[in-house]
């Protein structure tokens, strides 16, 4: 039996949540330190897994597989490969940074940190579990803390946003559950009996056995939930609402990792189990992706609320992920995963940045600001760096990911037009980022912010950590791509095997 790193990473936050919840509620410092400590240990463990992960060996590593409900073929099955390992590290990292960014939370602090840790458990669980039912369980578990975090610590319209988020996601999950059950009941059960094991299910060729209609229906049952999570146009409208209302740290996690669950699940489940259907419907996905890219960028352009702008930019950037998946070439798929990772760091950083300014000024409206660079040079520098990373400047991770997606997608002759249109998104992205920077930081200083303080101390730490990661990956992408490659290869092998 292996050390069980994944179980530890997954359930350590749960332990942390329980410990935090049991602490005396007035000792804020102890609560924060405890939560940060647990998150940090989880981060360290995931980094250990990252370091120990053998990039040369194909397939899953750190596998833990124990029968759970044998009569139904449900197993406790966890493992990492190139697809989910970056996501796990991203989750633990961003949760830790989010906890740091929540240092000033004083409203029901104990509950807040416990929920953050609970959220981490749910998300890590989604990424590590390879049994569909376990996956589904974690998928649902993550909702509850998220809902509470928005509805308790959120902005003025938090109830609307939280309920919208939950209902939207649950609508997707309901369909997903139907899809999972369809996979379960129609799998080739001759060999191993009924199972929710993803790898076993992938051995059934549903399209061949039950025809394209069946596999397409199951495909859409599954993918709708993921597209909502991603989110792709036209299922994205929960995102801006949730982001605007959520507290900073929650936005960071929401945009940084929660969205990645959608992209990850499409690759892990749809691409692995129903390659034929994905191939058949790639056009539809690509069109949605391209619309997301352009449309998200355009709507970002005219936002006056910084957070909404970043939220819509997430729609735009996640469009690249979908495009990469839909293009179905090895490079594009790699690019999609890479884009998920980099977008996690970049958007996480942008939300943190918005949070810092919001804490200082209690406004997020671009029109309220102006010339802030004069008073906050460090903050402005960090924001410019974040913005540049977001618009895909070379030397930063965003460029590597987007370029890989473009090259990979363009290699599929059917996707060339979509790729070019999506590439136009980088101009619009540059447009709204630059325009925003100009209006917020440059020009004459607006009088009312004359005494605003520059960012410092604990506000800066998470930002610097993310900048370092963004630049490191941008300069030496092999750090991440080596890991990702091993996870994408088997998925793509599925397609070649199916003759697609």
């Amino acid at each position, binding site marked *: 039996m292996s050390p069980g790193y994944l179980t530890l990473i997954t359930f350590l936050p749960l332990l942390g949540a329980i410990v935090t919840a049991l602490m005396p509620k007035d000792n804020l410092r102890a609560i924060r330190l405890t939560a940060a400590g647990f998150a940090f240990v989880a981060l360290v463990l995931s980094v250990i897994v990252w370091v120990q992960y053998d990039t040369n060996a194909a397939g899953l590593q750190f596998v833990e597989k124990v029968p759970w409900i044998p009569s139904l073929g449900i197993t406790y099955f966890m493992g990492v490969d190139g697809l989910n390992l970056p996501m796990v590290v991203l989750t633990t990292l961003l949760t830790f940074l989010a906890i740091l960014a929540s240092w000033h939370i004083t409203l029901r602090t104990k509950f807040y940190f416990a929920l953050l840790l609970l959220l981490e458990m749910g998300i890590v669980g989604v990424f590590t579990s390879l049994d569909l039912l376990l996956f589904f369980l974690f998928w649902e578990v993550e909702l509850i803390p998220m809902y509470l975090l928005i509805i308790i610590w959120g902005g003025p319209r938090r109830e609307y946003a939280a309920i*919208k988020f939950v209902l*939207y996601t649950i609508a997707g999950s309901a369909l997903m559950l139907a899809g999972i059950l369809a996979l379960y009941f129609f799998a080739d059960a001759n060999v191993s009996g009924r199972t929710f094991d993803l790898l076993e299910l992938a051995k059934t060729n549903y399209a061949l056995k039950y025809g394209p209609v069946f596999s397409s229906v199951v495909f859409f049952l599954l993918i709708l939930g993921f597209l909502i999570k991603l989110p792709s*146009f*036209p299922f*994205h*409208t*929960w995102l801006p609402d949730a982001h605007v209302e959520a507290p900073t740290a929650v936005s960071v996690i929401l945009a940084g990792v929660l969205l990645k669950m959608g992209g990850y699940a499409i690759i892990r489940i749809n691409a692995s189990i129903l390659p034929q259907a994905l191939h058949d419907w790639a056009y539809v996905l690509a069109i949605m992706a391209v619309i997301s890219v352009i*449309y998200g960028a*355009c*709507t970002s*352009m*005219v*936002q006056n609320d910084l957070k909404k702008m970043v939220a819509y930019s997430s729609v735009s950037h996640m469009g690249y992920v979908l495009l990469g998946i839909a293009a179905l*070439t*090895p*490079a*594009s*798929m*790699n*690019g999609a995963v*890479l884009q998920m990772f980099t977008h996690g760091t970049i958007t996480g950083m942008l939300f943190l940045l918005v949070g810092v300014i919001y804490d200082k000024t209690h406004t997020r409206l671009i029109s309220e600001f102006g*010339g802030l*660079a*004069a008073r906050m040079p460090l903050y402005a520098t960090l924001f410019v760096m974040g913005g*540049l990373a977001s618009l895909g*400047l*070379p*030397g930063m991770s965003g*460029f*590597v990911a987007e*370029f*890989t997606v*473009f*090259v*990979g997608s363009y*290699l599929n002759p059917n996707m*060339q037009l979509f790729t*070019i249109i999506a*590439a*136009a998104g*980088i*101009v*619009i992205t*540059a*447009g709204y980022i*630059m*325009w925003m920077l*100009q209006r917020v930081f*440059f*020009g*004459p*200083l607006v009088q009312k912010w004359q005494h605003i303080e520059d960012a410092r101390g604990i506000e800066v730490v998470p930002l610097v950590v993310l900048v370092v990661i963004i630049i490191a990956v941008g300069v*030496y*992408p*092999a750090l991440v*791509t080596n890991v*990702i*490659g091993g996870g*994408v290869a088997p998925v*793509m092998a599925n397609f070649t095997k199916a003759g697609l």
Partner: protein
Amino acid sequence: MESFSIEYLGLIPLFPLLAFVIIALVTRPLKRLSAYLSILAVFASLLVSAWALYSLVIAFLSHASGEALVKELTVTWFSVGGVALPAGLILDPLTAMMLIVVTIVSFLVQVYSQGYMHDDPGYSKYFAFISLFTTSMLILVMANNFLQLYIGWELVGLCSYLLIGFWYHKPEAAAAAKKAFLTTRLGDLGLLVGILIIYFTTHSFGFAEIEHEIKVGALSGGLLTVAMVCVFLGAVGKSAQFPLHVWLPDAMEGPTPVSALIHAATMVAAGVYLVARTFEMFAASPDQQALLVVAYVGGFTAIFAASMGLVMNDIKKVMAYSTISQLGYMMMGLGVGAYAAGVFHLFNHAFFKALLFLGSGSVIHAVHDQDMRNMGGLGGKLKITFVTMLFASLALAGIPPFSGFWSKDEILAGAFEKDTLLYIIGAVAAFFTAFYIFRAMFMTFTGKYRGAPAHDSHGSAGGHGHDSVHASASPEDELRAKVKEHASGHGEHGIHESPWVMTVPLILLAIPSLLSGLLGSPFMGMAFQSFIEKGAEVHEELNYTVMMSSIAIAVAGILLSSLVYYFKIIPANLISRPLPWLHAFVLNKYAMDDLYGWIVNSVVLGASRAALWFDQYVVDGIVNGVANLVGAAGGALRKVETGQIPNYGLAIFAGAVVISAVLIISGSTL
């Protein structure tokens, strides 16, 4: 050549990069140290570049040619899903020449900046940015593949953005920086698409491999033309060619040395460099269509920008349009197939245009004004500036033996052979060029000082401390100074020549303005061209007709200019008086800014607003609509719950009867 290993090339951008990192992280508070560090770094790069060039020149002089003059090194940067993304270095005559140009100009500009940027609060930051720019530009010119070139390409764009917006508190500067970045990025999109097309067909990013693949026909026909036009689009953006030229005049909001370095000598020439670097690919397109596009865009830009140069009153704007025009010239040269001539012009232009900008900077530094109508008679005060700028102007106008003449003439000769229309365009543009640059010279340096009347100058009050003068009106305060100027006046007495750190670079740049052309002159056997073409024999029949006519055109331009602005025989408003709308139209930059402003504000933002409306009311409307529908259905159904117990009882028994009836009729024995 043996002495210089290709790996050493990697050192060249490393020095400024280190300087950037150290300044940014460590020495930021120590202004002087930062500047010295930066200058030292670029000087080190200059030395290594010179060494690289020297090794090539030695090889060239020993009659090596072709591939013997090319060294390449390629490693895999990272590889993903079967696509290997390369990083590589190339050392060939073109790169060596660019390296020298970049490092020399960067070095001189940095030396000059010590004086110009003196006392600017962002002094360290300025040098950090310049170092970063130098790094990026060097990465760009030594790339042996499209990917790395694209990276350098974007990074120089970033540095340009940062430096244009260096005085970010000026709204104009911030707007200009954004405009520059976005306009060039539009072109970059073309470059990106071009790269994608090329990679799709040739499965390579490397220039050499792609050329090989094109030779064997992997990419040919219309697609090749499309790909190269896309690549050219990148060059159009970066080199400010029509129709993406609008950013460059605005970019003059940046500090003047930055304009000299980035927006005259190096970055804007990157577009020309790109076309030169991929010249073989352009030439391979069917009927050289791609080259034809380059030629016509370049030619049109040359005359189009020159015409605007004629009417501008801001000295830097004149220079800016001049740059656009000259870049158009280079493009035209490349387009008509005069590859070496185009590159040669790039080489010469880098020096004399940098000189012109630095000279303008010196003038602005002295009078704290950019409007030539408020200058005049400065030749006596700013002797060094005047003389060096005169050299550069003669070079620009194309008077032999100054450098510009040789390359410009060769471009015209190339155009003459290729396409008469282009030749005429070029000749007219040359006339305009000669006219507007001497208009600028006359307006600035001759006649009487037209600034506000002499006053008890605040400048001289501070004694001879140039520094203190500059301190109070360092370019950082240009705007404020300008306002003050009109209020209190500055006076002729306060005008002094710039300090030596500024004049020495002027003098150093005046030398190549005079002499660099000779390298490619028939007197030296067209050595430059032969070198750039990797040792190929260049036997150009001297076209005396073209040569004589171009001299005549230049002289005519200068003469006319002198008649109008020196001797004042011809009134300056000879044309503008009867045709005021034309003058206004040209002065308004052919309303291109208005057009683009309209496109951005109305079309792009309008569409975005429409998208947002659509998002809020249609997409989200549907979402909320579904929710409301469910709610409404519930609302309607709950009316069934009347609260009347008899109703419920009735329903219960009616239901029981119905169920019983069904069971009975269906014959169930339940």
